[in-house]
């Protein structure tokens, strides 16, 4: 298969455009749903990955977000609820040349699909996962999800939920994930940048997209995304740069002892030098976990690529084992196998 692809890359220096990926299906999300912005960001990214258009596959589970594959003209598979990661694994392992994207929701991947979610992360199969976190089950009309904040009133929690929610970033790290980023559906520029970076990452990359469901959890992320509060509540992480935020770029994150703290630049003699420098590549994820946890009012929310570390991908390791076995095994065909080991001949009577 790798031969095939090399040929193809030579054959096709054609420049692709967004139009190469626009599907003929009517987009059926609610007007105003954050999903539209995510779709348009991905449509901007796909043509620019240097991959031929037939080598993209988009898979999903079930949910509003999981309708995604219909809206992009690639190979696509709208699976069953919660199982997108397993589908994607089978596809990518079969053909590592494919660029596999997965669109999924907080219900699809953190509720019913939780097990496949944590396992794909630890296996580090090179899939790009877009996790649409609207903190609600949209498609089934408004039940709480594993990311719904404690106490929220929904159709199935008329007195408020009593469950401690997952924070996707923390779960990704706990599951040995090698790439975690967080973006908001209101910032298309950052979405495309981060998607591009995730595509380049070798291994499972998880982008949590804080997505607005206008119908069932409208404004759930507004403390982070609203015009009035976003400057104070968003920290845009950049690798190698100090963690500074605020309307006037006058606040920063410090790590003292084993805890993070927001400090004001210029106060108590604090300057840029005292601010934590973001290093997305550190193997020990302790600090990434702390960053992923930050939440207003105490902290701003960390956006951008929080963690990106190198680790062998499953499918590469698999291809290596196969290559080695092909080279070293005396068995060249199934006939050889059938005749290997203890056999005996019966001569004609």
């Amino acid at each position, binding site marked *: 298969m790798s031969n*095939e692809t090399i040929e193809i890359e030579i054959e096709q220096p054609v420049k692709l455009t967004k139009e190469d990926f626009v*599907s003929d*299906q009517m987009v059926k999300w609610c007007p105003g749903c954050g999903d539209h912005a995510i779709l348009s960001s991905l449509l901007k990214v796909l043509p620019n990955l240097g991959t*031929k*258009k*037939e*080598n993209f*596959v988009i898979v999903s589970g*079930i949910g509003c977000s999981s309708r995604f*594959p*219909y809206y992009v*003209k*690639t*190979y*696509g*598979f*709208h*699976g*069953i609820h919660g*199982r997108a*990661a*397993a*589908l*994607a*694994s*089978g*596809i990518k*392992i*079969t*053909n590592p*040349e*494919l660029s596999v994207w997965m669109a999924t929701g907080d219900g699809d991947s953190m509720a019913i699909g939780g*097990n*496949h979610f944590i*396992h794909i992360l630890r296996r580090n199969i090179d899939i790009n996962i877009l996790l649409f976190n609207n903190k609600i089950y949209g498609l089934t009309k408004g039940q709480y999800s594993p990311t719904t904040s404690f106490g929220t009133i929904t159709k199935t929690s008329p007195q408020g939920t009593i469950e401690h929610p997952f924070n996707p970033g923390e779960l990704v790290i706990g599951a040995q994930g090698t790439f975690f980023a967080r973006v908001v559906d209101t910032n298309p520029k950052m979405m495309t940048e981060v998607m591009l970076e995730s595509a380049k990452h070798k291994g499972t990359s998880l982008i949590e997209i804080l997505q607005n469901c206008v119908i069932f959890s409208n404004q759930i992320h507004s403390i982070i995304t609203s015009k009035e509060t976003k400057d104070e509540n968003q920290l845009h992480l950049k690798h190698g740069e100090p963690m500074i935020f605020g309307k006037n770029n006058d606040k920063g994150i410090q790590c003292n002892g084993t805890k993070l703290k927001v400090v004001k630049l210029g106060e108590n003699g604090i300057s840029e030098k005292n601010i934590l420098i973001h290093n997305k590549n550190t193997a020990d994820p302790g600090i990434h976990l702390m960053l992923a946890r930050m939440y207003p009012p105490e902290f701003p929310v960390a956006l951008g690529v929080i963690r990106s570390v190198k680790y062998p991908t499953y499918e590469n390791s*698999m291809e290596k*084992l*196969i290559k*080695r*076995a*092909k080279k*070293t*095994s005396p*068995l*060249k*065909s*199934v*006939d050889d*196998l*059938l*005749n290997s*080991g*203890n*056999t*005996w*001949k*019966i*001569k*004609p*009577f």
Partner: protein
Amino acid sequence: MTKKHNNVVNVEDVVVRFVGDSGDGMQLTGTLFSDASAIAGYDFATFPDYPSEIRAPQGTIAGVSGFQVHIGHKDIYTTGDLADVLVAMNPASVKSNIKWARTGATIIIDTDTFTEKALKKAGYTDNPLNNDSLKDYNLVKAPISTLTKECVANLDVDNKTAMKSRNMFALGIIFFIFNRDYKSADSFLEEKFKQKPLVLKINKQILRAGYNYADTIEAIESTYNLEPAELEKGTYRNITGNVATAWGFLAAAERSGRNLFLGSYPITPASEILQELSKHKQFGAKVFQAEDEIAGIVSSIGASFAGSLAVTTTSGPGLSLKSEAIGLAVMTELPIVIVDVQRGGPSTGLPTKSEQSDLLQALFGRNGEAPVIIIAASSCSNCFYYAYEASRLAIEHMTPVILLTDGYLANGSEIFKIPKIADLSAINPPIVKPNDPDYEPYKRDNEKLNRLWAIPGSEGLRHRIGGLEKENIYGNVSHDPDNHQLMCELRADKVKRVANYIPKQKIIGKKKGDLLVVGWGGTHGVLLEAVKKMQKKGKKVSLAHFNYINPLPKNTEDIFSNFKKIIVAELNLGQFVLYLRMNFQQIKFEQFNKIQGLPFRVSELVDKFNQILEEK
């Protein structure tokens, strides 16, 4: 070999059962005996019978591990009802296994192990060697432990090591009893212990000592002589059902030009298929040990979408978990083979025992109208062919196929005539050529009704599928009422038409008669033996044993209509018979069921069939 003071009995076949503590190496002993028999040209069948605990407490009944071998010069279809020779390495073995020995059987016993403590552990209040309880058997009481230790006194080994090879002493006795050359075990021992020359030496030496001991003492009343089997010429090997299944898939992958992908989660008694395929990366087989059964099948569906010959293997509880995903494969019309190595149910049930109780689940265990092809293997060695056949049908008809085997076939072994892969029927994947302008995701072959396989990466064929109802031809999501009815019917029809692509049902015996015995899957050997026995006695009995279950072969009704009575014999409470009743309402079926985690015995079958023949 000199034969001195004993009779030589000529027999057609013989059943030997080796039993001992889990640590006593009885599986190895049994395998060596069957392999040596094979080399000498006999047919055989074996079945291991071990406890569900990894190491149950030593010396207890729970810890007894057994291995039964049936060898003979005629075709051997079963592992035998009752043993002619029982090798029992300790009191617990005698206590728990004497019921498997026929009256008059030879019982070889290590008398050294009959200590008071061991007797108590086995639950004996009285030493059976000192009372009458074993008087109906031909006891060969040998101080095997003592003799074993003595025999390696010349070598630099401690007692513990020596005792580990106690089984070889017993095997030596058996070799003598069957007039078998002890050297025939040498090559196997050499292979097995090639890294451990001392162990090899010990084993060989003890084996010979056992042989010589039997030759010397006068306890052996008679030795057996078997004519070699009249086997077709060819190259043979020993094979278990699980290994045969694994190899069948490798063959199908090679023949179809598709990469093999296995997504599976370990479960008794199916794990060996997964383990076997893990070894064969040289053929490009990709084995994905999934986090659970659901990921096992769903990853396979993904792999199938991407162009693999996709397989998932499991047992009953795992098949339950795969139900929803099988429906997805039905809707997306992708090829995938689901192997269910049946075990005792319901629920966790009897994990190490075999039965045939997943048939109705295989037929109906999914939401909605979700028909799939179902086939069943019926011998350890034809697991190879049915795994191959399942792959062929899945790929050529673009549909999931469930292949049913069972714990008995899976762990049992028999001789396997090695085929040439080139001689197997071709497998033609209906793959779409890149840029085919006529391609539509749900356009179908006129005859088979399968849709085509457009594999990601192919130019000009981008399309999207999924679990929602599909628009005919175009494959878009469709809520149209008439389309839904049409698609449900098309999916059903596609599976029904498979009947045009499978062999006709065979019948063993006359085409007309008084009684037709009907079976399916793993009971073939024993049903055949029972029917042949009755045919020899002049009874008008025939056997129709099914491997193709959904759809049934086209001539099934014809076959049924030519018999006065039909009895369906199964290891469950009656599942195939229900299925036949709903398909052939006009035909009357009697049923014989057993659900004990044990195979049928020839004798109970013959009794039952005779009774049916006599009833008015």
